[in-house]
Protein backbone atom coordinates (compact mmCIF):
# COMPACT_ATOMS: atom_id res chain seq x y z
CA UNK A 1 0.00 0.00 0.00
CA UNK A 2 1.32 3.45 -0.79
CA UNK A 3 0.64 6.55 1.23
CA UNK A 4 -0.49 9.68 -0.52
CA UNK A 5 2.37 12.17 -0.37
CA UNK A 6 1.38 15.36 1.35
CA UNK A 7 2.88 18.78 1.34
CA UNK A 8 3.68 19.35 4.99
CA UNK A 9 5.68 22.53 4.71
CA UNK A 10 2.64 24.74 5.19
CA UNK A 11 2.70 25.36 8.90
CA UNK A 12 5.73 23.82 10.55
CA UNK A 13 9.37 24.38 9.71
CA UNK A 14 11.86 21.67 10.62
CA UNK A 15 14.15 23.79 12.73
CA UNK A 16 11.52 25.58 14.79
CA UNK A 17 11.27 24.22 18.32
CA UNK A 18 7.80 23.08 19.35
CA UNK A 19 5.90 25.65 21.35
CA UNK A 20 3.45 24.66 24.04
CA UNK A 21 0.56 26.97 24.80
CA UNK A 22 2.04 27.70 28.24
CA UNK A 23 5.42 28.73 26.86
CA UNK A 24 3.67 30.75 24.19
CA UNK A 25 1.69 32.58 26.87
CA UNK A 26 4.84 33.20 28.91
CA UNK A 27 6.54 34.83 25.89
CA UNK A 28 3.49 36.98 25.27
CA UNK A 29 3.50 38.03 28.93
CA UNK A 30 7.16 39.05 28.75
CA UNK A 31 6.45 41.23 25.72
CA UNK A 32 3.86 43.19 27.70
CA UNK A 33 5.74 46.01 29.51
CA UNK A 34 3.00 46.86 32.00
CA UNK A 35 2.60 43.21 32.94
CA UNK A 36 6.35 42.81 33.45
CA UNK A 37 6.37 45.95 35.63
CA UNK A 38 3.45 44.54 37.61
CA UNK A 39 5.20 41.19 37.96
CA UNK A 40 8.40 42.92 39.14
CA UNK A 41 6.53 44.89 41.82
CA UNK A 42 4.66 41.78 42.94
CA UNK A 43 7.94 39.85 43.24
CA UNK A 44 9.53 42.75 45.12
CA UNK A 45 6.60 42.94 47.56
CA UNK A 46 6.64 39.18 48.02
CA UNK A 47 10.38 39.37 48.76
CA UNK A 48 9.74 42.13 51.29
CA UNK A 49 6.96 40.10 52.87
CA UNK A 50 9.13 37.02 53.24
CA UNK A 51 12.37 38.67 54.35
CA UNK A 52 10.77 41.61 56.18
CA UNK A 53 12.39 40.99 59.57
CA UNK A 54 15.87 41.10 58.01
CA UNK A 55 15.16 44.27 56.04
CA UNK A 56 13.80 46.52 58.73
CA UNK A 57 16.13 48.51 60.98
CA UNK A 58 13.58 48.63 63.82
CA UNK A 59 11.05 46.34 65.41
CA UNK A 60 7.52 47.28 64.43
CA UNK A 61 6.45 47.41 68.06
CA UNK A 62 9.33 49.36 69.53
CA UNK A 63 8.09 52.71 70.70
CA UNK A 64 10.38 55.67 70.94
CA UNK A 65 8.33 58.36 72.64
CA UNK A 66 11.13 60.90 72.23
CA UNK A 67 10.83 60.61 68.46
CA UNK A 68 7.08 60.80 67.81
CA UNK A 69 5.49 61.86 64.50
CA UNK A 70 8.82 62.57 62.85
CA UNK A 71 8.94 63.45 59.18
CA UNK A 72 10.74 61.00 56.86
CA UNK A 73 14.51 61.07 57.30
CA UNK A 74 17.47 58.79 56.67
CA UNK A 75 17.06 57.22 60.11
CA UNK A 76 13.31 56.69 59.56
CA UNK A 77 12.64 56.39 55.83
CA UNK A 78 8.89 56.90 56.20
CA UNK A 79 9.11 58.83 59.47
CA UNK A 80 7.60 57.73 62.79
CA UNK A 81 4.03 57.57 64.09
CA UNK A 82 2.37 59.00 67.18
CA UNK A 83 3.93 56.34 69.41
CA UNK A 84 7.38 56.82 67.89
CA UNK A 85 7.27 53.57 65.94
CA UNK A 86 9.17 53.38 62.66
CA UNK A 87 6.60 53.65 59.84
CA UNK A 88 8.86 51.92 57.30
CA UNK A 89 9.12 48.85 59.53
CA UNK A 90 5.38 48.86 60.07
CA UNK A 91 4.70 49.11 56.33
CA UNK A 92 7.08 46.18 55.76
CA UNK A 93 5.26 44.11 58.38
CA UNK A 94 1.99 45.31 56.91
CA UNK A 95 3.14 43.82 53.60
CA UNK A 96 3.52 40.54 55.44
CA UNK A 97 0.01 40.79 56.83
CA UNK A 98 -1.37 41.75 53.44
CA UNK A 99 0.31 38.81 51.71
CA UNK A 100 -0.62 36.30 54.39
CA UNK A 101 -4.25 37.43 54.34
CA UNK A 102 -4.40 37.63 50.55
CA UNK A 103 -2.79 34.24 49.99
CA UNK A 104 -4.68 32.36 52.70
CA UNK A 105 -8.03 33.92 51.81
CA UNK A 106 -7.54 33.39 48.07
CA UNK A 107 -6.33 29.83 48.64
CA UNK A 108 -9.41 28.95 50.72
CA UNK A 109 -11.70 30.69 48.24
CA UNK A 110 -10.06 28.96 45.26
CA UNK A 111 -10.25 25.52 46.87
CA UNK A 112 -13.94 25.97 47.72
CA UNK A 113 -14.78 27.70 44.45
CA UNK A 114 -12.90 25.32 42.14
CA UNK A 115 -14.19 22.18 43.86
CA UNK A 116 -17.82 23.28 43.90
CA UNK A 117 -17.67 24.92 40.47
CA UNK A 118 -15.96 21.98 38.75
CA UNK A 119 -18.34 19.47 40.30
CA UNK A 120 -21.38 21.61 39.50
CA UNK A 121 -20.24 21.94 35.89
CA UNK A 122 -19.25 18.30 35.47
CA UNK A 123 -22.18 16.60 37.16
CA UNK A 124 -24.90 19.20 36.60
CA UNK A 125 -28.42 18.47 37.80
CA UNK A 126 -29.59 19.15 41.33
CA UNK A 127 -26.06 19.57 42.74
CA UNK A 128 -25.38 22.26 40.16
CA UNK A 129 -28.59 24.08 41.03
CA UNK A 130 -27.93 24.06 44.78
CA UNK A 131 -24.36 25.32 44.34
CA UNK A 132 -25.57 28.10 42.09
CA UNK A 133 -28.24 29.08 44.61
CA UNK A 134 -25.54 29.46 47.24
CA UNK A 135 -23.28 31.53 44.99
CA UNK A 136 -26.15 33.82 43.97
CA UNK A 137 -27.22 34.17 47.59
CA UNK A 138 -23.70 35.01 48.76
CA UNK A 139 -23.12 37.45 45.93
CA UNK A 140 -26.40 39.23 46.57
CA UNK A 141 -25.34 40.30 50.08
CA UNK A 142 -23.11 43.40 50.19
CA UNK A 143 -19.57 42.19 51.01
CA UNK A 144 -18.70 44.72 53.68
CA UNK A 145 -22.02 44.29 55.42
CA UNK A 146 -21.65 40.52 55.57
CA UNK A 147 -18.14 40.69 57.01
CA UNK A 148 -19.04 43.36 59.54
CA UNK A 149 -22.08 41.36 60.66
CA UNK A 150 -20.07 38.14 60.99
CA UNK A 151 -17.29 39.82 62.94
CA UNK A 152 -19.59 41.83 65.15
CA UNK A 153 -21.87 38.94 65.99
CA UNK A 154 -19.37 36.11 66.35
CA UNK A 155 -16.33 37.77 67.86
CA UNK A 156 -17.71 38.20 71.37
CA UNK A 157 -19.19 34.71 71.74
CA UNK A 158 -16.09 33.01 70.34
CA UNK A 159 -13.77 35.05 72.54
CA UNK A 160 -15.96 34.24 75.55
CA UNK A 161 -15.94 30.56 74.63
CA UNK A 162 -12.12 30.63 74.33
CA UNK A 163 -11.87 32.28 77.74
CA UNK A 164 -14.17 29.65 79.21
CA UNK A 165 -12.10 26.86 77.65
CA UNK A 166 -8.97 28.45 79.11
CA UNK A 167 -10.54 28.60 82.55
CA UNK A 168 -11.55 24.96 82.22
CA UNK A 169 -8.36 23.50 80.72
CA UNK A 170 -5.67 26.09 81.42
CA UNK A 171 -4.39 25.33 77.94
CA UNK A 172 -2.50 28.48 76.88
CA UNK A 173 -3.69 27.99 73.31
CA UNK A 174 -7.06 29.44 74.33
CA UNK A 175 -5.38 32.64 75.45
CA UNK A 176 -4.22 33.45 71.92
CA UNK A 177 -7.06 35.66 70.76
CA UNK A 178 -5.06 36.23 67.56
CA UNK A 179 -6.52 32.92 66.33
CA UNK A 180 -10.02 34.28 66.72
CA UNK A 181 -9.00 37.27 64.59
CA UNK A 182 -7.51 35.05 61.95
CA UNK A 183 -10.45 32.67 61.93
CA UNK A 184 -12.96 35.47 61.60
CA UNK A 185 -10.99 37.61 59.17
CA UNK A 186 -9.89 34.74 56.92
CA UNK A 187 -13.16 32.89 57.24
CA UNK A 188 -15.44 35.81 56.50
CA UNK A 189 -13.27 37.05 53.63
CA UNK A 190 -13.07 33.59 52.08
CA UNK A 191 -16.83 33.29 52.48
CA UNK A 192 -17.40 36.32 50.28
CA UNK A 193 -14.57 35.55 47.85
CA UNK A 194 -15.37 32.03 46.63
CA UNK A 195 -18.52 32.57 44.51
CA UNK A 196 -16.79 34.27 41.55
CA UNK A 197 -14.29 31.39 41.34
CA UNK A 198 -17.09 28.82 41.48
CA UNK A 199 -18.98 30.54 38.68
CA UNK A 200 -15.90 30.99 36.54
CA UNK A 201 -14.80 27.36 36.87
CA UNK A 202 -18.33 26.06 36.34
CA UNK A 203 -18.70 28.06 33.15
CA UNK A 204 -15.31 26.84 31.94
CA UNK A 205 -16.10 23.22 32.67
CA UNK A 206 -19.50 23.52 30.99
CA UNK A 207 -17.94 24.89 27.83
CA UNK A 208 -15.05 22.41 27.79
CA UNK A 209 -16.91 19.23 28.60
CA UNK A 210 -18.91 19.54 25.37
CA UNK A 211 -15.86 19.95 23.14
CA UNK A 212 -15.03 17.17 20.69
CA UNK A 213 -11.68 16.42 22.33
CA UNK A 214 -13.46 15.52 25.55
CA UNK A 215 -15.92 13.33 23.64
CA UNK A 216 -12.93 11.78 21.89
CA UNK A 217 -11.37 11.05 25.29
CA UNK A 218 -14.61 9.36 26.35
CA UNK A 219 -14.64 7.39 23.11
CA UNK A 220 -11.10 6.23 23.94
CA UNK A 221 -12.55 4.84 27.17
CA UNK A 222 -10.55 7.11 29.51
CA UNK A 223 -11.76 7.34 33.10
CA UNK A 224 -13.61 10.40 34.41
CA UNK A 225 -10.62 11.20 36.62
CA UNK A 226 -8.20 11.21 33.66
CA UNK A 227 -10.59 13.30 31.60
CA UNK A 228 -10.89 15.86 34.40
CA UNK A 229 -7.15 15.95 35.11
CA UNK A 230 -5.76 15.90 31.56
CA UNK A 231 -8.50 17.45 29.48
CA UNK A 232 -10.76 19.69 31.51
CA UNK A 233 -8.57 21.19 34.25
CA UNK A 234 -5.58 22.17 32.04
CA UNK A 235 -7.93 23.90 29.62
CA UNK A 236 -9.99 25.58 32.33
CA UNK A 237 -7.07 26.89 34.35
CA UNK A 238 -6.06 29.87 32.17
CA UNK A 239 -8.93 32.17 33.16
CA UNK A 240 -8.57 30.94 36.74
CA UNK A 241 -4.93 32.12 36.87
CA UNK A 242 -6.02 35.55 35.67
CA UNK A 243 -8.80 35.62 38.20
CA UNK A 244 -6.51 34.57 41.07
CA UNK A 245 -3.97 37.24 40.19
CA UNK A 246 -6.66 39.91 40.25
CA UNK A 247 -8.20 38.27 43.33
CA UNK A 248 -4.95 38.58 45.33
CA UNK A 249 -5.00 42.34 44.77
CA UNK A 250 -8.67 42.52 45.66
CA UNK A 251 -8.10 40.53 48.84
CA UNK A 252 -5.40 43.02 49.93
CA UNK A 253 -7.77 45.92 49.36
CA UNK A 254 -10.53 44.04 51.21
CA UNK A 255 -8.25 43.34 54.17
CA UNK A 256 -7.28 47.02 54.29
CA UNK A 257 -10.91 48.06 54.06
CA UNK A 258 -11.82 45.78 56.97
CA UNK A 259 -8.86 46.92 59.07
CA UNK A 260 -9.83 50.48 58.27
CA UNK A 261 -13.32 49.77 59.61
CA UNK A 262 -11.86 48.04 62.63
CA UNK A 263 -13.09 44.54 61.80
CA UNK A 264 -9.85 43.29 60.30
CA UNK A 265 -6.49 42.43 61.79
CA UNK A 266 -6.29 44.11 65.18
CA UNK A 267 -3.60 46.49 66.38
CA UNK A 268 -0.80 46.30 67.29
CA UNK A 269 -0.29 43.86 64.37
CA UNK A 270 0.46 46.28 61.55
CA UNK A 271 -1.75 46.19 58.53
CA UNK A 272 -1.91 48.78 55.75
CA UNK A 273 -5.58 49.25 56.50
CA UNK A 274 -5.26 50.06 60.19
CA UNK A 275 -2.25 52.27 59.45
CA UNK A 276 -4.34 54.22 56.94
CA UNK A 277 -7.12 54.40 59.50
CA UNK A 278 -4.72 55.81 62.11
CA UNK A 279 -3.09 58.13 59.60
CA UNK A 280 -6.38 59.55 58.45
CA UNK A 281 -7.04 61.10 61.85
CA UNK A 282 -3.91 63.25 61.72
CA UNK A 283 -3.22 63.61 58.04
CA UNK A 284 -3.40 67.40 58.08
CA UNK A 285 -0.47 67.50 60.49
CA UNK A 286 1.50 64.39 59.56
CA UNK A 287 0.60 63.47 55.97
CA UNK A 288 3.38 60.85 55.77
CA UNK A 289 1.48 58.63 58.22
CA UNK A 290 -1.32 58.34 55.67
CA UNK A 291 0.76 58.61 52.51
CA UNK A 292 3.20 55.73 53.20
CA UNK A 293 0.73 52.85 53.71
CA UNK A 294 -1.75 54.25 51.17
CA UNK A 295 0.97 54.54 48.52
CA UNK A 296 2.16 50.96 49.11
CA UNK A 297 -1.41 49.64 49.04
CA UNK A 298 -2.04 51.54 45.81
CA UNK A 299 1.19 50.24 44.32
CA UNK A 300 0.32 46.64 45.22
CA UNK A 301 -3.20 46.93 43.80
CA UNK A 302 -2.01 48.47 40.55
CA UNK A 303 0.74 45.85 40.22
CA UNK A 304 -1.66 42.93 40.65
CA UNK A 305 -4.11 44.55 38.28
CA UNK A 306 -1.45 45.05 35.54
CA UNK A 307 -0.23 41.50 36.05
CA UNK A 308 -3.78 40.17 35.83
CA UNK A 309 -4.47 42.11 32.62
CA UNK A 310 -1.19 40.90 31.15
CA UNK A 311 -1.97 37.30 32.07
CA UNK A 312 -5.40 37.66 30.53
CA UNK A 313 -3.93 38.89 27.25
CA UNK A 314 -1.22 36.24 27.34
CA UNK A 315 -3.51 33.31 28.11
CA UNK A 316 -6.45 34.33 25.92
CA UNK A 317 -4.71 35.84 22.90
CA UNK A 318 -7.82 35.70 20.73
CA UNK A 319 -9.87 37.81 23.12
CA UNK A 320 -7.36 40.65 23.30
CA UNK A 321 -7.14 41.52 19.62
Amino acid at each position, binding site marked *: *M*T*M*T*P*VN*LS*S*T*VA*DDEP*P*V*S*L*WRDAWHRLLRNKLAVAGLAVVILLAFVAVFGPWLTPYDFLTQDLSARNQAPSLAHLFGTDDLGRDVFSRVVYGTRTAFVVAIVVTAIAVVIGVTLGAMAGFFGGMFDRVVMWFTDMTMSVPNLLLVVVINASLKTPITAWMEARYQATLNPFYRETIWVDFLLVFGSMALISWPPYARLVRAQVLSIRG*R*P*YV*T*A*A*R*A*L*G*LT*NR*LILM*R*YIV*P*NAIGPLIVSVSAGLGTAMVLESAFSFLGVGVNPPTPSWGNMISDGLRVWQHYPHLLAAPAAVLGLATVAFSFLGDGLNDALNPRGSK
Partner: protein
Amino acid sequence: MAAEPLIKVENLVKHFVVRLGAFGERGATVYAVDDVSFDIFAGETLSLVGESGCGKSTTGFTLLNLQKATSGKVIFQGENIVSLDEKRMRPYRRELQIVFQDPYSTLNPRMTIGEVVGEPILFHKLATKAELPECVSRLLADVGLPARFAQRYPHELSGGQRQRVAIARALACQPKFIVCDEAISALDVSVQAQIINLLLDLQEKYGLTYLFIAHDLAVVRHISTRVGVMYLGRMAELATREQLFSNPLHPYTRALLSAVPEADPELEKTRQRQILTGDVPSPLAPPAGCRFHTRCPIAMDKCKAVVPEWREVVPGHHVSCHAVGMETAG
Protein backbone atom coordinates in the same frame (compact mmCIF):
# COMPACT_ATOMS: atom_id res chain seq x y z
CA MET B 1 -20.08 -9.58 2.36
CA ALA B 2 -19.95 -11.62 5.54
CA ALA B 3 -23.22 -13.20 6.57
CA GLU B 4 -22.93 -12.27 10.22
CA PRO B 5 -22.91 -8.49 10.74
CA LEU B 6 -20.15 -6.84 12.80
CA ILE B 7 -22.69 -4.54 14.43
CA LYS B 8 -26.42 -5.02 14.58
CA VAL B 9 -28.55 -1.96 15.27
CA GLU B 10 -32.07 -2.89 16.35
CA ASN B 11 -34.87 -0.35 16.79
CA LEU B 12 -32.49 2.29 18.10
CA VAL B 13 -34.28 5.29 19.62
CA LYS B 14 -32.77 8.48 20.98
CA HIS B 15 -35.05 11.17 22.36
CA PHE B 16 -33.82 14.35 23.99
CA VAL B 17 -35.99 16.04 26.57
CA VAL B 18 -35.65 19.82 26.39
CA ARG B 19 -37.12 22.57 28.54
CA LEU B 20 -38.88 25.39 26.74
CA GLY B 21 -40.37 28.72 27.74
CA ALA B 22 -38.81 31.54 29.74
CA PHE B 23 -38.70 29.45 32.93
CA GLY B 24 -38.33 26.03 31.35
CA GLU B 25 -41.91 25.34 32.36
CA ARG B 26 -42.73 23.31 29.27
CA GLY B 27 -41.07 20.01 28.53
CA ALA B 28 -40.68 18.80 24.98
CA THR B 29 -39.13 15.81 23.29
CA VAL B 30 -36.79 15.97 20.33
CA TYR B 31 -37.25 12.83 18.28
CA ALA B 32 -33.62 12.75 17.11
CA VAL B 33 -33.43 9.06 16.22
CA ASP B 34 -36.63 7.07 16.03
CA ASP B 35 -36.73 3.34 15.58
CA VAL B 36 -33.73 2.86 13.32
CA SER B 37 -32.51 -0.65 12.44
CA PHE B 38 -29.62 -1.68 10.22
CA ASP B 39 -26.64 -4.00 10.10
CA ILE B 40 -23.02 -3.07 9.57
CA PHE B 41 -20.90 -5.76 7.93
CA ALA B 42 -17.20 -6.23 8.55
CA GLY B 43 -14.97 -4.45 6.07
CA GLU B 44 -17.66 -2.31 4.50
CA THR B 45 -18.23 1.42 4.43
CA LEU B 46 -21.80 2.21 5.34
CA SER B 47 -22.67 5.83 4.67
CA LEU B 48 -25.47 7.72 6.36
CA VAL B 49 -26.73 10.73 4.46
CA GLY B 50 -29.48 13.25 5.06
CA GLU B 51 -30.09 16.90 5.76
CA SER B 52 -28.72 18.68 8.85
CA GLY B 53 -30.62 17.64 11.93
CA CYS B 54 -31.93 14.39 10.49
CA GLY B 55 -30.25 12.41 13.26
CA LYS B 56 -27.33 10.87 11.41
CA SER B 57 -24.69 12.14 13.84
CA THR B 58 -26.88 11.25 16.81
CA THR B 59 -27.13 7.74 15.38
CA GLY B 60 -23.31 7.57 15.35
CA PHE B 61 -23.00 8.88 18.90
CA THR B 62 -25.72 6.64 20.29
CA LEU B 63 -24.28 3.65 18.49
CA LEU B 64 -20.97 4.19 20.34
CA ASN B 65 -22.81 4.68 23.63
CA LEU B 66 -21.44 8.22 23.86
CA GLN B 67 -25.06 9.26 24.32
CA LYS B 68 -27.38 6.97 26.20
CA ALA B 69 -29.93 5.37 23.89
CA THR B 70 -33.56 5.87 24.90
CA SER B 71 -34.33 2.34 23.79
CA GLY B 72 -33.22 -0.24 21.28
CA LYS B 73 -30.15 -2.40 20.96
CA VAL B 74 -26.73 -2.24 19.41
CA ILE B 75 -25.26 -5.73 19.30
CA PHE B 76 -21.48 -5.94 19.03
CA GLN B 77 -19.69 -9.22 19.72
CA GLY B 78 -22.85 -10.66 21.19
CA GLU B 79 -23.27 -7.87 23.72
CA ASN B 80 -25.87 -5.10 23.69
CA ILE B 81 -23.34 -2.28 24.19
CA VAL B 82 -25.83 0.56 24.62
CA SER B 83 -27.01 -1.01 27.87
CA LEU B 84 -23.49 -1.09 29.38
CA ASP B 85 -22.23 1.37 31.96
CA GLU B 86 -18.95 3.17 31.35
CA LYS B 87 -16.85 0.60 33.19
CA ARG B 88 -18.19 -2.44 31.34
CA MET B 89 -18.14 -0.47 28.10
CA ARG B 90 -14.39 0.19 28.36
CA PRO B 91 -13.11 -2.97 26.62
CA TYR B 92 -15.43 -2.27 23.69
CA ARG B 93 -14.38 1.38 23.49
CA ARG B 94 -10.98 0.29 22.20
CA GLU B 95 -12.56 -1.47 19.22
CA LEU B 96 -15.10 1.22 18.35
CA GLN B 97 -13.61 4.59 17.51
CA ILE B 98 -14.76 7.94 16.16
CA VAL B 99 -13.32 10.80 14.08
CA PHE B 100 -15.02 14.17 14.38
CA GLN B 101 -15.90 16.93 12.00
CA ASP B 102 -14.08 19.98 13.36
CA PRO B 103 -10.30 19.48 13.17
CA TYR B 104 -9.72 22.56 15.37
CA SER B 105 -11.44 21.26 18.47
CA THR B 106 -10.84 17.54 18.06
CA LEU B 107 -7.42 17.63 19.75
CA ASN B 108 -6.66 18.70 23.30
CA PRO B 109 -4.68 21.95 22.84
CA ARG B 110 -2.51 21.21 25.90
CA MET B 111 -1.15 17.89 24.64
CA THR B 112 1.53 17.27 22.02
CA ILE B 113 0.68 15.13 19.01
CA GLY B 114 2.83 12.36 20.51
CA GLU B 115 0.83 12.48 23.75
CA VAL B 116 -2.47 12.54 21.86
CA VAL B 117 -1.57 9.46 19.84
CA GLY B 118 0.31 7.71 22.63
CA GLU B 119 -2.35 8.10 25.34
CA PRO B 120 -4.75 5.39 24.10
CA ILE B 121 -1.83 3.00 23.53
CA LEU B 122 -0.68 3.30 27.14
CA PHE B 123 -4.20 3.41 28.55
CA HIS B 124 -5.26 0.21 26.82
CA LYS B 125 -1.82 -1.33 27.45
CA LEU B 126 -1.21 -2.02 23.76
CA ALA B 127 2.52 -1.32 24.14
CA THR B 128 5.05 -0.61 26.88
CA LYS B 129 6.46 2.82 27.60
CA ALA B 130 9.72 1.83 25.91
CA GLU B 131 7.96 0.83 22.71
CA LEU B 132 5.80 3.94 22.68
CA PRO B 133 7.92 6.32 20.51
CA GLU B 134 8.23 3.58 17.91
CA CYS B 135 4.46 2.97 17.95
CA VAL B 136 3.69 6.66 17.67
CA SER B 137 6.02 7.16 14.69
CA ARG B 138 4.50 4.14 12.96
CA LEU B 139 0.98 5.51 13.48
CA LEU B 140 2.01 8.96 12.26
CA ALA B 141 3.59 7.34 9.20
CA ASP B 142 0.33 5.46 8.65
CA VAL B 143 -1.55 8.73 8.35
CA GLY B 144 1.19 10.35 6.26
CA LEU B 145 2.80 12.55 8.90
CA PRO B 146 6.54 12.62 9.69
CA ALA B 147 7.65 11.33 13.10
CA ARG B 148 8.96 14.74 14.17
CA PHE B 149 5.34 15.92 14.43
CA ALA B 150 5.12 14.01 17.72
CA GLN B 151 6.76 16.97 19.47
CA ARG B 152 4.30 19.48 18.00
CA TYR B 153 1.17 20.97 19.50
CA PRO B 154 -2.16 20.96 17.65
CA HIS B 155 -2.20 24.74 17.13
CA GLU B 156 0.98 24.43 15.05
CA LEU B 157 -0.76 22.17 12.51
CA SER B 158 -3.13 22.83 9.62
CA GLY B 159 -6.68 21.51 9.57
CA GLY B 160 -5.85 18.57 7.33
CA GLN B 161 -2.85 17.64 9.46
CA ARG B 162 -4.97 17.74 12.61
CA GLN B 163 -7.54 15.49 11.01
CA ARG B 164 -4.72 13.05 10.22
CA VAL B 165 -3.71 13.14 13.88
CA ALA B 166 -7.32 12.47 14.90
CA ILE B 167 -7.33 9.44 12.60
CA ALA B 168 -4.00 8.28 14.07
CA ARG B 169 -5.48 8.59 17.58
CA ALA B 170 -8.42 6.41 16.55
CA LEU B 171 -6.05 3.91 14.91
CA ALA B 172 -3.88 3.78 18.04
CA CYS B 173 -6.60 1.73 19.73
CA GLN B 174 -6.36 -0.88 16.96
CA PRO B 175 -10.11 -0.60 16.38
CA LYS B 176 -12.34 -2.74 14.19
CA PHE B 177 -14.86 -0.01 13.53
CA ILE B 178 -14.61 3.76 13.11
CA VAL B 179 -17.46 6.27 12.95
CA CYS B 180 -16.41 9.12 10.65
CA ASP B 181 -18.76 11.88 11.78
CA GLU B 182 -18.60 14.37 8.90
CA ALA B 183 -14.86 13.79 9.15
CA ILE B 184 -14.10 15.67 5.94
CA SER B 185 -16.87 18.27 5.83
CA ALA B 186 -14.84 21.04 7.46
CA LEU B 187 -11.80 20.64 5.19
CA ASP B 188 -10.80 22.25 1.90
CA VAL B 189 -11.86 20.26 -1.14
CA SER B 190 -8.28 19.33 -2.07
CA VAL B 191 -7.60 18.18 1.50
CA GLN B 192 -10.91 16.28 1.55
CA ALA B 193 -9.67 14.12 -1.33
CA GLN B 194 -6.43 13.37 0.53
CA ILE B 195 -8.23 12.38 3.71
CA ILE B 196 -10.73 10.20 1.82
CA ASN B 197 -7.89 8.38 0.08
CA LEU B 198 -6.13 8.01 3.41
CA LEU B 199 -9.27 6.49 4.97
CA LEU B 200 -9.60 4.07 2.05
CA ASP B 201 -5.92 3.07 2.25
CA LEU B 202 -6.20 2.45 5.98
CA GLN B 203 -9.38 0.44 5.51
CA GLU B 204 -7.53 -1.84 3.12
CA LYS B 205 -4.44 -2.10 5.32
CA TYR B 206 -6.19 -2.79 8.63
CA GLY B 207 -9.50 -4.26 7.47
CA LEU B 208 -11.48 -1.44 9.05
CA THR B 209 -15.23 -0.98 8.95
CA TYR B 210 -16.56 2.56 8.61
CA LEU B 211 -19.82 4.24 9.41
CA PHE B 212 -19.40 7.30 7.24
CA ILE B 213 -21.71 10.15 8.17
CA ALA B 214 -21.81 12.76 5.42
CA HIS B 215 -24.01 15.01 3.35
CA ASP B 216 -21.86 15.23 0.23
CA LEU B 217 -23.38 12.65 -2.12
CA ALA B 218 -20.47 12.75 -4.57
CA VAL B 219 -18.11 11.65 -1.79
CA VAL B 220 -20.57 9.05 -0.55
CA ARG B 221 -20.89 7.60 -4.04
CA HIS B 222 -17.11 7.35 -4.26
CA ILE B 223 -16.39 5.51 -1.03
CA SER B 224 -19.51 3.63 0.13
CA THR B 225 -20.35 -0.03 0.01
CA ARG B 226 -23.90 0.68 1.14
CA VAL B 227 -25.78 3.90 1.75
CA GLY B 228 -28.50 4.73 4.25
CA VAL B 229 -30.72 7.78 3.76
CA MET B 230 -32.19 9.37 6.88
CA TYR B 231 -35.01 11.85 7.19
CA LEU B 232 -36.17 13.42 10.46
CA GLY B 233 -34.80 10.69 12.69
CA ARG B 234 -36.01 7.75 10.62
CA MET B 235 -34.27 5.65 8.02
CA ALA B 236 -35.93 6.24 4.64
CA GLU B 237 -33.93 3.90 2.48
CA LEU B 238 -30.92 1.61 2.78
CA ALA B 239 -29.31 -0.15 -0.15
CA THR B 240 -26.01 -0.94 -1.80
CA ARG B 241 -24.38 1.96 -3.53
CA GLU B 242 -25.33 0.62 -6.99
CA GLN B 243 -28.94 -0.01 -6.03
CA LEU B 244 -29.39 3.33 -4.37
CA PHE B 245 -27.80 5.49 -7.04
CA SER B 246 -29.25 3.66 -10.04
CA ASN B 247 -32.65 2.78 -8.65
CA PRO B 248 -33.66 5.04 -5.77
CA LEU B 249 -37.05 3.97 -4.45
CA HIS B 250 -37.95 6.48 -1.76
CA PRO B 251 -39.21 9.84 -3.08
CA TYR B 252 -36.88 11.62 -0.63
CA THR B 253 -33.85 9.75 -1.97
CA ARG B 254 -34.88 10.67 -5.50
CA ALA B 255 -35.14 14.34 -4.57
CA LEU B 256 -31.71 14.19 -2.86
CA LEU B 257 -30.05 12.51 -5.83
CA SER B 258 -31.61 14.89 -8.31
CA ALA B 259 -29.92 17.74 -6.43
CA VAL B 260 -26.43 16.45 -7.22
CA PRO B 261 -24.99 18.44 -10.11
CA GLU B 262 -23.57 16.55 -13.10
CA ALA B 263 -19.97 17.18 -14.06
CA ASP B 264 -20.78 16.78 -17.77
CA PRO B 265 -22.41 20.03 -19.03
CA GLU B 266 -24.47 18.16 -21.65
CA LEU B 267 -25.93 15.84 -19.05
CA GLU B 268 -26.34 18.75 -16.65
CA LYS B 269 -28.62 20.49 -19.20
CA THR B 270 -30.98 17.54 -19.42
CA ARG B 271 -30.83 16.69 -15.72
CA GLN B 272 -34.28 16.25 -14.19
CA ARG B 273 -34.46 18.13 -10.92
CA GLN B 274 -37.08 17.47 -8.38
CA ILE B 275 -37.36 20.40 -6.02
CA LEU B 276 -38.91 19.79 -2.63
CA THR B 277 -41.13 22.51 -1.27
CA GLY B 278 -41.34 23.60 2.33
CA ASP B 279 -38.92 23.15 5.21
CA VAL B 280 -38.02 20.11 7.23
CA PRO B 281 -40.67 19.91 9.98
CA SER B 282 -39.46 20.44 13.55
CA PRO B 283 -38.15 17.28 15.21
CA LEU B 284 -40.01 18.53 18.31
CA ALA B 285 -43.31 17.79 16.57
CA PRO B 286 -42.66 15.40 13.71
CA PRO B 287 -45.59 14.69 11.38
CA ALA B 288 -47.68 11.63 12.08
CA GLY B 289 -47.55 8.69 9.73
CA CYS B 290 -44.69 8.93 7.27
CA ARG B 291 -42.46 11.81 8.41
CA PHE B 292 -41.90 12.83 4.80
CA HIS B 293 -45.56 13.19 3.82
CA THR B 294 -45.62 17.00 4.28
CA ARG B 295 -43.12 17.42 1.45
CA CYS B 296 -43.65 14.26 -0.55
CA PRO B 297 -44.79 14.74 -4.18
CA ILE B 298 -46.68 11.42 -4.17
CA ALA B 299 -48.17 11.48 -0.68
CA MET B 300 -51.45 9.64 -0.17
CA ASP B 301 -53.99 9.74 2.66
CA LYS B 302 -52.49 6.62 4.14
CA CYS B 303 -49.12 8.34 4.49
CA LYS B 304 -50.59 10.91 6.89
CA ALA B 305 -51.83 8.28 9.31
CA VAL B 306 -49.80 5.10 9.08
CA VAL B 307 -46.06 4.82 9.65
CA PRO B 308 -44.67 2.96 6.62
CA GLU B 309 -43.10 -0.36 7.43
CA TRP B 310 -39.33 -0.84 7.08
CA ARG B 311 -39.12 -3.63 4.53
CA GLU B 312 -36.69 -5.29 2.19
CA VAL B 313 -38.20 -4.94 -1.28
CA VAL B 314 -35.28 -6.40 -3.21
CA PRO B 315 -32.54 -8.41 -1.40
CA GLY B 316 -30.32 -5.83 0.30
CA HIS B 317 -32.61 -2.93 -0.57
CA HIS B 318 -34.65 -1.63 2.37
CA VAL B 319 -37.15 1.18 2.16
CA SER B 320 -39.97 2.62 4.20
CA CYS B 321 -42.59 4.02 1.85
CA HIS B 322 -46.20 3.05 1.23
CA ALA B 323 -45.99 3.94 -2.45
CA VAL B 324 -43.10 1.60 -3.23
CA GLY B 325 -45.10 -1.56 -2.61
CA MET B 326 -47.94 -0.28 -4.79
CA GLU B 327 -45.59 0.57 -7.62
CA THR B 328 -44.11 -2.90 -7.69
CA ALA B 329 -47.53 -4.48 -7.30
CA GLY B 330 -49.09 -2.33 -9.98
